[in-house]
């Protein structure tokens, strides 16, 4: 009962905040709405007994990514006017609509199964074993790390003054 109420409150907040990100013309307020969205998603993780994931969600998305977004906004001039519209409006709308259609189709067509087992209580150690043990996902984790490093180096090279 309490869990269902919590879920519905957070679900509504997530959707409203996500709509705010798209529709608010003030970019700074849109970024704040994005932060609210991230925090509420962390709340949803908690209702799913994924406490480690929730903490990491807040740490990475609120603490790092949102901070960088806000930093970028602060560096931008004339933010108050909002983002100006341009010729890419129509193609962007089509791409977004197609993507939305595909996602709705997938979500409705998948037969979601509920696991019979109760969730693990301390999730940290099993997650670490799954990710870093010999039979786990150590190779994809390492490849992702290399990819991010390469992206950072690329960003530095692009941004560097000539």
């Amino acid at each position, binding site marked *: 009962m309490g869990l269902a109420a919590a879920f519905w409150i957070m679900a509504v907040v997530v959707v409203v905040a996500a709509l705010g990100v798209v529709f608010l013309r003030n970019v*700074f307020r849109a970024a704040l709405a994005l932060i609210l969205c991230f925090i509420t998603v962390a709340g949803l993780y908690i209702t799913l007994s994924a406490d480690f994931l929730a903490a990491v969600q807040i740490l990475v998305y609120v603490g790092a990514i949102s901070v960088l977004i806000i930093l970028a906004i602060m560096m931008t001039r004339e933010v108050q006017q909002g983002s100006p519209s341009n010729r890419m409006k129509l193609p962007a709308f089509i791409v977004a609509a197609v993507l939305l259609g595909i996602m709705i189709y997938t979500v409705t067509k998948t037969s979601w199964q509920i696991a019979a087992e109760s969730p693990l209580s301390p999730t940290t150690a099993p997650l670490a074993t799954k990710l870093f043990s010999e039979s786990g996902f150590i190779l994809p984790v390492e490849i992702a790390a290399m990819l991010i490093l390469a992206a950072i180096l690329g960003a530095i090279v692009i941004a560097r003054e000539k």
Partner: protein
Amino acid sequence: MAIVDFIVQNQLPMQVVPPDWPGGYWWHWLFFTVVLIGFVLIMVMGVIYVERRGLGRMQSRLGPNRTGPFGLLQAVADAVKVLLKENIVPDKADKLVHWLAPVVAFVPVLMIFAVVPFQNGALLADLNIGILYVVAISSVATVGVFMAGWGSSNKYSLLGAMRNVAAVVSYEMPLVLAVLGVVLVAGSLSMNQIVLAQDIPYILFQPLGFLIFFAAGCAEINRSPFDLMEADQELVAGFHIEYSGMKFAMFYLVEYAEAIAIAAIITTLFLGGWRGPILPPWLWFIVKVIIVFFVMVWTRATFPRVRIDQLMALAWKFLFPLALINLFVTAIQVLVWPDALPWIVIIINFAIMGILILLWSKFFKLGWGRLEV
């Protein structure tokens, strides 16, 4: 302190959802939330007194000594004064963001105290991801500072907030790496488990980690000598320049509550938390918190404020590599000699700390960054 006293005298339980607690979970939650808010407010007044009198002593002056015996009521008088002041909002401010900023800054700091163990078992919750929760939640407080800096429509506010981004993003890494060393030795993320594992306080096992955490923690909460975002002679008052009355009081409260939170985390991670002989656990905890805070006051009185390039260089060229090496060395010690005699490990770690700090300060150089942008 009085409230904790009240709890102990009335034999109220302080564990996580005690079985004999009347009214169940929600009453427990409500009661201890109120207790924590009271604790934070009273501690803030206490440490403001310690800071002002201590600073006065260190700077060869008296400090506030007129209001009440020994000036003890000065903080109360200041609080009343600031609450009665007019609330001024700038004309061009983003009103909603300006209004919400102090709240967004204050709530995460309060939430940190939920997992701090005052006794065997925290007040509100003994999460098994305790220290990760603290690191995650404290990063939200920065958002409040941005909102204040942006919402005020003031260039000094904005500059202060931007300096804060730079400091927080840079210092979070050595901070978390220093915490990881402790987590490796204790083998748990839970704050209470970390305290229970400390038969010898971890400041002896992790001396380098302690120094890194202390420096990075002071930078993270913008205490002097790292208080660049409110450097008076450059930015007037930094991000809270356009705040007055109650909202300014909120930011003032956040500043000291953050200092207490960092002191409480240092106490829990490095100084053995609530453990100690003779005195009751919660008193040990408070005494250690106040000692750590006093050291912060001491550093504030001793060191001049750093420049922004020095701040960045210290984080990236000094603390960050040392924190990485510290983590590496700790990992090797935990893996290779898990049963080594404690005093050998302690001597080795102190030697490593001395050598590394000497070596790095020898090679520490500020970058010759170009000034034009």
